[in-house]
């Protein structure tokens, strides 16, 4: 499915990262694997450090911290945005929507469109699409898009498949109308037949959490995880990305009439370094144009990794200048999406620690 959005742009990005940092080497003893094997994996996948929330910290805590930072520093006024979209897979509660909790905790105005979206690694692009659609309404002047996840709280520390790469974080992206006649091209695909490839089996109504679903089990791969934990079929996810994403981006560029060379940066979801370098090799994109360093420094925080890759790698350039960027998100659902836009002139593009 192809989309075009006219006269919309991103005007600021803030990433909020837990101050609590853990290292892969410290955590190796928790895994049921010889250290030598884990160290080889560290080198290939780019695992080093990741940022995790302390027990009890929720998505709304990270989001409120980020918005308060913007208000306090005069980067955003509390009355100047008319919609607040939160994309998360780890809400504070089943109900109410966490976006409403954020609105309430900050005493934001009642004339505010609050919306939660349950999405993951493609969630930045899906959130942007929703923001662009809301901005078609005259009454909506600016949209605050929050991507946030604290999935470390739903990942087994004894699961070497998932735990080393998980990171917790939030991002706040300000989206508004563009005075220039700009065009953003996007595309999106979904395949729910493969929904079990990335899932948390228990905790919803299909399989409620019980003492039994909290028991750690070895399902045959030397990793211990419970049904309450995130489960990822690494091989299936890897194959999905390598098969589906290159043609998706080729189609996007073809529909936009743009060549690969005309793109300054390919900012992809930061799954892990190996996966991204294989993607770059397949697409014949130099590694310097496709950053893959977020997992190494912060961990993979689902829908937050694209804005985090931007703030970590391109902040100086995008505060003063512009770049043509191709964004690509892929993951839970399964969902895969890409977007081509001119990005820059940002009024803020930075990272802060929580708390």
């Amino acid at each position, binding site marked *: 499915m192809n989309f075009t959005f006219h006269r919309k742009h991103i005007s600021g990005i803030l990433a909020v990262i837990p101050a609590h940092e853990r290292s892969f080497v410290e955590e190796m003893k928790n895994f049921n694997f010889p250290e030598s*094997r884990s160290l*080889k*994996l560290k*080198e*290939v*996948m780019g695992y080093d450090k990741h940022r995790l929330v302390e027990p009890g910290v929720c998505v709304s805590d990270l989001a409120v911290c980020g918005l308060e930072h913007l208000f306090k520093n005069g980067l955003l006024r509390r009355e100047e945005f008319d919609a607040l979209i939160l994309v998360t897979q780890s809400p504070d509660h089943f109900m109410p929507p966490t976006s409403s909790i954020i609105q309430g905790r900050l005493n934001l105005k009642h004339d505010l469109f609050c919306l939660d979206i349950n999405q993951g690694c493609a969630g930045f692009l899906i959130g942007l699409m929703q923001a662009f659609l809301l901005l078609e309404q005259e009454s909506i002047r600016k949209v605050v898009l929050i991507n946030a996840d604290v999935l470390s709280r739903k990942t087994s520390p004894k699961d*070497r*498949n998932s735990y080393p790469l998980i990171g917790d974080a939030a991002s706040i992206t300000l989206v508004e109308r563009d005075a220039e006649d700009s065009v953003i091209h996007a595309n999106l695909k979904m395949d729910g037949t493969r929904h079990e490839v990335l899932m948390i089996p228990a905790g919803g109504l299909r399989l409620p959490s019980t003492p039994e679903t909290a028991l750690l089990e070895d399902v045959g*791969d*030397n990793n211990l995880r419970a049904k309450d934990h995130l489960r990822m079929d*690494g*091989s299936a996810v*890897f*194959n999905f*990305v*390598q*098969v589906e994403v290159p043609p998706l981006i080729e189609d996007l560029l073809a529909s936009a009439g743009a060549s690969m060379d005309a793109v300054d940066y390919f900012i992809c979801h930061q799954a892990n370094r*190996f*996966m991204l370098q*294989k*993607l770059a*090799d*397949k697409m014949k994109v130099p590694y310097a144009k496709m950053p893959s360093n977020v997992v190494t420094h912060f961990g993979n925080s689902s829908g937050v990794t694209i804005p985090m890759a931007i703030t970590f790698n391109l902040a100086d350039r995008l505060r003063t200048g512009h770049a043509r960027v191709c964004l690509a998100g892929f993951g839970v659902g399964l969902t895969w999406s890409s977007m081509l836009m001119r990005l820059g002139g940002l009024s803020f593009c930075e990272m802060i620690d929580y708390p």
Partner: protein
Amino acid sequence: MKSLAEILKEIRPEFNFSTSTDFMADGMLDSFDMITLVATLDKTHGISIQGVDIVPEHFKNLQAIDALLRKYGIRP
């Protein structure tokens, strides 16, 4: 240059890979070992095995890996 047997021995020293016809089924390689193997083969031979080729059937046994390397112009 390291041979395939030497590379596999480095990754999982506890196994004799010449006796198995299915490394995955026999529990000798898991999906993360496969990734370590690909990264080592890439570096050793100066190639980049494409993501779409990184599937268990291409790493099932010595013959399958040899066939994959031939596809990238590497004669074992």
